[in-house]
């Protein structure tokens, strides 16, 4: 007999169901609901196609000596964004190059802006911590990256 056909079992399942929803901290659930505001419409996100950090980690997960700078590459629609991360900051390069602005955003609402010169380069300082994404805006270029992390130690 399926569990729902027996009153006692149905009540047991209800008890479990209500307990499950209570075990996730309210703030965590609220943040998860709030994630929807980060939805991008009509724009394909630039995906991380290469991260030099992935090359550094050995199979057991033990990290070899840090190689500086760490490089990341994002791609979408024939456009490329390359980042070089070092203690001094994040040096970026957009291809095809164009002047414009780059905005860094964090889920907590924190933003930072950098100017992009005619060669498509920019510098963001200091290196942001935690989960971030970049919004690149130039005359003929509009690029938003996926969420990614830059901190060496989360």
């Amino acid at each position, binding site marked *: 007999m399926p569990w729902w056909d027996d009153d006692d079992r149905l009540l047991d399942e209800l008890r479990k169901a209500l307990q*499950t929803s209570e075990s996730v901290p309210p703030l965590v659930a609220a943040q998860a609901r709030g994630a929807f505001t980060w939805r991008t419409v009509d724009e394909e996100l630039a995906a991380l196609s290469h991260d030099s950090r992935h090359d550094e980690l050995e199979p057991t997960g033990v990290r070899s000596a840090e190689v500086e700078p760490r490089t990341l590459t994002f791609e979408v629609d024939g456009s490329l964004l390359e980042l070089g991360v070092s203690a001094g900051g994040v040096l970026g390069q957009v291809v095809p190059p164009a002047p414009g602005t780059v905005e860094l955003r964090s889920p907590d609402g924190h933003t930072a802006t950098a100017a992009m010169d005619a060669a498509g380069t920019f510098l963001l300082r200091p290196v942001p911590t935690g989960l971030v994404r970049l919004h690149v805006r130039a005359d003929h270029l509009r690029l938003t990256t996926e969420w990614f992390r830059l901190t060496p130690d989360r």
Partner: protein
Amino acid sequence: MTSHWGVTELLVAAATAGDAAAWEELVDRYAGLVWSVCRRYRLTDADAADVSQTVWLRTVERLDRLREAGALPGWLVTTTSRECLHALRTARRTVDLDENVRALDVDAVDVAAGVLAAERAAALRAGLANLPPQCQQLIALLVTDPPPSYTDVSSRMGMPVGSIGPTRARCLEKLRRSPALAALMADHASR
């Protein structure tokens, strides 16, 4: 686990189209699943909260790619596992290989059971929310741990002790007939 076009797929489609309420319903359904995966990797609450946020932000990014039946729960478990391993690795300079192997031993049956439990819990909560207030109140009392005596229930509800049993049966039958439970039963039959 086979699946047909069910509630989750409809919610994903609606959320993809911009329906924030559908998104919130998805979170209500599956936040527990994400959290339970974090628990399995023995993350601290703070790390689990970080993982959860990352997972849901990434889910929003690729919502339109998760429309197929069964895609979302599988994606949630895989992504949460990956983020949990990342959190474990970066929390320590060296990784205990044995612990890593244990952590990776996320049993397929375990995962499927977790997903089923999440869907069942969501359907039950949805069904409960649509019952008449008296039924909701009675059921809420009856599921408390430890369960109250019928005398307690009687005084709390202002209802004669003798009518508690029949009312309980009536409310549970209403729950069984609710659309949320009907969908769950149909889903169960098709698996």
